[in-house]
């Protein structure tokens, strides 16, 4: 634990135990999403599915990066991730992004993807709101993740016909916002 770092956050009035619990449940959401997105990506096939596969893969890798970036902050603040993988899965901040019953229904897969991203956007907005102007490091991390989740949402939303995303797919490395926490 980073003793003074935690103390600095406590002094702002933030309930650090609650914050750590939130970070753990969001770390769980990221890792479980990485797992479920693997299944979704595998099933994005055919004329409709192949065009979406690449952004699903980018979102999948970036969600894993989010997990990797969150874990050090959890430990800095005196928390720890559960020793049991089942327990970790069950505390996820977001519902499982499960494969739809009809695995060939690309639109249904897109709806699962966009709902997962929307849950993440809400979750990191919540953490940013809690930490803004108080816990600078957690805020910086949550904001970096939020930037990527917003882009993921807009990619999938565009494919659902909700309007242009205003974005293009990643060029170059993944996680342009979060990579500074992964070095």
């Amino acid at each position, binding site marked *: 634990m980073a003793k003074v770092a935690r103390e600095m956050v406590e002094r702002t009035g933030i309930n650090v135990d*609650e914050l750590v*619990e*939130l970070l753990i*449940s969001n770390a769980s959401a990221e890792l479980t999403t990485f797992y479920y997105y693997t299944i979704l990506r595998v099933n994005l096939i055919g004329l409709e599915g192949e065009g979406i596969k690449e952004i699903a893969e980018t979102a999948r890798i970036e969600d894993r990066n989010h997990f990797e970036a969150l874990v050090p902050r959890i430990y800095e603040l005196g928390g720890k991730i559960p020793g049991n993988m089942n327990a970790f899965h069950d505390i996820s*901040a*977001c*519902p499982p992004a499960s494969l739809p019953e009809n695995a060939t229904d690309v639109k249904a897969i897109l709806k699962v993807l966009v709902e997962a991203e929307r849950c993440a*956007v*809400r*979750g990191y*907005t*919540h953490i940013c*709101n809690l930490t803004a102007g108080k816990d600078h490091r957690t805020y910086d991390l949550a904001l970096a993740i939020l930037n990527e989740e917003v882009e993921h949402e807009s990619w999938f939303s565009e494919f659902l016909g909700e309007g242009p995303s205003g974005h293009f797919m990643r060029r170059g490395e993944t996680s342009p916002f979060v990579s500074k926490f992964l070095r």
Partner: protein
Amino acid sequence: MRVFTLQDLSRYNGRDGNLAYVAYRGLVYDVSGSYFFRGGRHWVRHNAGSDLSDEIDQAPHDESLLQRFPVVGSLTMVE
């Protein structure tokens, strides 16, 4: 429609087998079926069995997410 006091509502806290109800702007919703209220808590800080009107107004979502769940009564502030 059943009328709940805050004390009545507090029994529906989603814990120990209790149903999970929350109030928002005078209506009481049954959120027992919501993934987000497992164990009676939503994102660590928001508890079932209480009036969440102020908290929802500050939440990163609007009330439409709550309105997907059945209304089971109204909330009175008279004890």
